[in-house]
């Protein structure tokens, strides 16, 4: 099923014992589903707590006197304005303003930050960051960690029973609760939840404790994808790519106003031009009529049959109870409620532009 050159998760034996079905993703052999199946795994996460092994993602520690300066150059971010323990979604952009990767940056100390990068871009991200770091007094250190996500309304209670108190930690904040641990209240499901990077031995201990709790179930990559799609969250490589900029991707909210105006990050000029011009296409939610899913790659047409855009992610939303999708449409058609048509194997399926998310976010913001 996966090539011999796939990378393997440190906890692969635990997933195998749990009955995981594996598949290739971003160069890794990843658990796609467990015996419960994608539908039950998805719904369990929204109702209780889902445990995800996301060790394919990469943690980088950026530290040194010029850590703020490096991050302000690498990302459209005001790193110095972050409070200690505050996290922010940001990006690496290319000179054209295209999104090389989306990242979460957390301030750990005055001159110390954690950067979490996507699996598929981890190698390129490290190279990019190291090349930039050469001009700054800063250290970039990729960390060797198991990375777990626990997501859902009972995630905090399950962690508490496992001996980890999360009480005062709020959404988009991260701390180092133990030696070589990084724990943030964040995730990619739209639910309250946590992401924890920790050494393998500690991870084995934590996983055993969590799985002893009937509220906790392993969740595979298939449900991770349907959960994030319902939550309206982008998958890099599909919904955002080096060919899309934050303006077209409807992600300008992640860039502070003063940084948009005067930041000296890579891609700043191109992004300012793009904002000035206004994007030709915009990322939108798409709600197909009926039960038939509309998937990535499907072409979109307006009511007169003219090309209108394309679908970048699509599938069925188990909690929404209907097919859900995301894609790009001509800006004039981007208003929620506008009807377009998706070509699915020669049939035109009516699709309504929909506001995102499809299922309400339930983050604990305070």
């Amino acid at each position, binding site marked *: 099923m996966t090539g011999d050159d796939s990378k393997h998760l440190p906890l692969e034996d635990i997933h195998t014992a749990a009955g995981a079905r594996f598949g290739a993703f971003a160069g890794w052999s990843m658990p796609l589903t467990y015996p419960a199946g*994608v*539908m039950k795994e998805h719904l369990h996460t929204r109702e209780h707590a889902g445990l995800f092994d996301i060790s394919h993602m990469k943690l980088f520690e950026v530290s040194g006197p010029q850590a703020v300066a490096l991050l302000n150059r690498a990302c459209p971010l005001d790193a110095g304005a972050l409070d200690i323990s505050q996290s922010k979604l940001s990006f690496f952009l290319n000179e054209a303003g295209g999104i090389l990767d989306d990242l979460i940056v957390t301030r750990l100390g005055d001159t110390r930050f954690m950067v979490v990068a996507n699996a598929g871009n981890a190698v390129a991200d490290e190279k990019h960051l190291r090349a930039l770091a050469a001009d700054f007094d800063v250290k970039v250190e990729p960390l060797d960690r198991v990375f777990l996500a626990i997501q859902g309304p009972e995630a905090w209670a399950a962690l508490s029973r496992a001996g980890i108190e999360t009480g005062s930690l709020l959404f988009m904040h991260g701390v180092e609760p133990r030696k070589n641990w990084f724990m943030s209240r964040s995730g990619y499901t739209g639910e309250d939840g946590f992401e924890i990077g920790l050494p393998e031995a500690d991870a084995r201990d934590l996983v055993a404790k969590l799985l002893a709790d009937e509220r906790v179930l392993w969740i595979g990559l298939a449900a991770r994808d349907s959960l994030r799609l319902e939550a309206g969250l982008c998958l890099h490589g599909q919904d955002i790519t080096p060919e899309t900029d934050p303006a077209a991707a409807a992600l300008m909210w992640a860039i502070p106003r003063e940084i948009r105006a005067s930041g000296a990050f890579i891609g700043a000029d191109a992004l300012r031009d793009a904002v000035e011009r206004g994007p030709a296409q915009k990322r939108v939610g798409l709600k197909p009529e009926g*039960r*038939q*899913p509309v*998937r990535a790659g499907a072409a979109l047409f307006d009511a007169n049959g003219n090309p209108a855009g394309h679908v970048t992610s699509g599938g*069925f939303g*188990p909690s929404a109870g209907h097919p859900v999708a995301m894609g790009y449409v001509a800006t004039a058609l981007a208003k929620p409620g506008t009807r377009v048509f998706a070509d699915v194997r020669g049939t035109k399926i009516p699709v309504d532009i929909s506001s995102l998310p499809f299922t309400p976010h339930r983050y604990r913001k305070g």
Partner: protein
Amino acid sequence: MATTYFTTDHEWLRVEGGIATVGITDYAQEQLGDLVFVELPEIGKKLAKGDTAVVVESVKAASDVYAPVDGEITEANGTLSSDPSLVNSAATGAGWLWKMKLADESQLAGLMDEAAYKAHIA
């Protein structure tokens, strides 16, 4: 007396009086995962062996189900429009996909019986 045949593409055919009822095997539904939509064929459509007859869609992906032999569609399992999960819960029973009138019964000779299919997926 109906005879059941199997294909290497993990379909089953129950043949009686020149009509084959076709579905996917339990092994296939397990591989696909929870189905959320089945695109059924039109009645009267003529298919050659290997043509796509039905598309089954799981949460994650769409997969073609091929005509295992030549023939003409005589019936489609309309129940699946409202409950595609029948293919998961009863793949070899109520989750059948379509019925077809065989064009050439000699094609059945190339298919597997249950014992051979079980060996094929073992």
